């Protein structure tokens, strides 16, 4: 099995998607963010220059353009880039794209992908660090995808693009250099299928996006303490795979949820509520959430480090549910 970097897997996905489907257009293009690897995207831009557009700084305009293009036979992937900028195009994403299929009684499909980078990135401060996926989960009509590994980003980007629904592809810059196994002839990963990233028996840690990697590191440390952590990655919020989560919850009875959205009404809050409703009798301890604190993201490095789902908080939560 070959091992490649996350950004390479993402680039492979874009290349294969563009080659396979001439209706896929890219609107805006920082799919590799400000990563030093972003030059690989230039090769793609050259090859498909007629299907890649660089719009002005007009998120409202180009999110709407992508939505309209999706209604008319294209499958655009829009790069919103920094997740916070979705707020500039919010009316088109949340009020038009999300509603179109339902509101029309099923007449109009909107196969658009809105791609963004969420979360704490090191000095992003309050306006470049948003994780809007919790708010978007509360806005019906949108699929939401969060990859956490090279194999996932490739397989999920393909499925997101193939989906006939408006899809939010929530990526994270801290994942770009991560290395992982990606089969030569991989298949798309269906939406709505969670993944057990690490098998364990003592506690179920549910994590999303970059937090999956952080939890795997914490799990490795806890081996010395003879604590065997199972890490479950939902991979998609909508559609949501409850069955895989509950299989793990039934096995361990102890749950910690680690996610980068802010605590109040965050992703962890919703998952916790669903587990309690579905399998309260399976729980041996209250569920613990480890989320970003409910404060605007501060700039200074020690402050930014402090507010996120830190390793020590994850550790402490795991130990707490085991008591």
């Amino acid at each position, binding site marked *: 099995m070959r091992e490649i970097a996350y950004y390479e897997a993402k680039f492979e996905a874009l290349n294969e998607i563009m080659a396979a489907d001439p209706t896929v257009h890219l609107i805006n293009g920082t799919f590799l963010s400000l990563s030093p690897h972003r030059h690989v995207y230039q090769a793609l831009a050259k090859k498909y220059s007629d299907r890649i557009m660089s719009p*002005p700084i007009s998120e409202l305009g180009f999110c709407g353009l992508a939505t309209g293009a999706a209604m*008319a*036979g*294209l499958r655009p992937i829009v790069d919103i880039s920094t997740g916070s900028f979705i707020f500039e195009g919010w009316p088109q994403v949340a009020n038009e794209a999300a509603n179109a299929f339902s509101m029309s009684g099923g007449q109009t499909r909107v196969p658009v992908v809105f791609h963004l980078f969420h979360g704490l990135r090191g000095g992003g401060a309050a306006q470049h660090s948003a994780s809007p996926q919790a708010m978007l989960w509360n806005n019906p009509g949108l699929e939401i995808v969060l990859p956490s590994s090279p194999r996932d980003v490739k397989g999920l980007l393909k499925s997101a693009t193939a989906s006939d629904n408006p899809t939010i592809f929530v990526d994270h810059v801290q994942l770009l250099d991560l290395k992982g196994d990606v089969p030569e002839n991989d298949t798309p990963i269906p939406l709505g299928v969670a993944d057990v990233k690490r098998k364990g028996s003592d506690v179920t840690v549910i994590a999303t996006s970059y937090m999956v990697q952080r939890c795997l590191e914490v799990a490795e440390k806890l081996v010395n303490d003879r604590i065997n952590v199972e890490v479950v990655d939902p991979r998609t919020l909508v559609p949501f795979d409850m069955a895989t989560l509950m299989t793990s919850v039934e096995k361990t009875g102890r749950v910690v949820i680690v996610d980068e959205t802010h605590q109040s009404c965050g992703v962890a809050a919703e998952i916790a509520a669903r587990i309690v409703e579905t399998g309260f009798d399976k729980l041996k301890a209250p569920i613990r959430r480890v989320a970003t604190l409910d404060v605007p993201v501060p700039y200074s490095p020690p402050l930014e480090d402090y507010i996120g789902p830190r390793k020590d908080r994850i550790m402490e939560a795991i130990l707490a549910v085991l008591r």
Partner: protein
Amino acid sequence: MLPQVPRETLLDFCRRMFVIRHFEESLVPLHDKGVFGGHYHLYIGQEATGVPALSCLRADDYLFTTHRNHGHLLARGADPKRLCAEILGRADGYNKGKGGSFHTVVTSLGFLHTSAVVAGIIPLATGTAYAAKALKNGRITVCLFGDGALEEGAAPEALNLASLWKLPVLFLCENNGKYGAGRAAGAAQSTTMAAFPLTDLPKAYKVPAQQVDGLDSGAVHITISQAVEKIRGGEGPQFVEAQTVRWPGGETNWPVVLQNTNSSLAWDVSGVPDKVREWYRSCDPLLIYIRELVDAKQATKQEIADIENKVKADIADAVEFAVASPYPKPEVAAQEYFA
């Protein structure tokens, strides 16, 4: 003046304008009797813009419209039965009752999505235009909106994108505001839009723009045909501002019909209530049109009355159909929101 089209087409325009007028008027008592609720917006007073303008399009072109969509849908040939059913929230409505007056969608006629957010459709129109250009299918997009939409940031963003990427889209702004046709030269500045004339806005983005009298069906027809031809020829976007005088019945929160239309008003408004008589005498595009038809000897008063009576019967049927249509089953609410 009348459009330069064959007589059958002139009579067809006449019929469509009557369909719009009588359909819209029929909604008011339905609303007032509580048969449907919520806000709704009527196209009365703008028929001579919508009908000739939309006749310039091909069957596979895209159209976007707003909360004031009934007239556009009917001008394009939507079935009054299914439109009325949708407004009443019934299962036989175009959107199966899920959209209502604000959001009626008829994909077979090119209406893919109807937004009630002012300017919500303007960026979308650049999208369908972009897709048509990319897919090389020759379709153009017509984006229909009112004067208020230009106040929203989405409008200049979309104008810029359309001009920058030379998108095949016609921006048709129906200015029925006080500062449209109703504005006397030198009158007070609009309190909500500093640009005047409105065509300055698209021109600032190098989108060719012109104004047309929205009450003049012939002027509208020729202006729109020429604009459409330029767009189809690959010249990029065009902007047309059509000016009308706001129908007085639309001034209040909910529409009020102080005078039911019938063709004889074209020649005698003595029976019209004082408050609205002047509008019907000189600003009603439908009455202007039928007067022109008769003056040009393209139809007799009787022929016109016959067309109108047939339309009235059809509208009555549509209302009956809609009222008899069942409501959707409650569980439909949780269905069909993902493809």
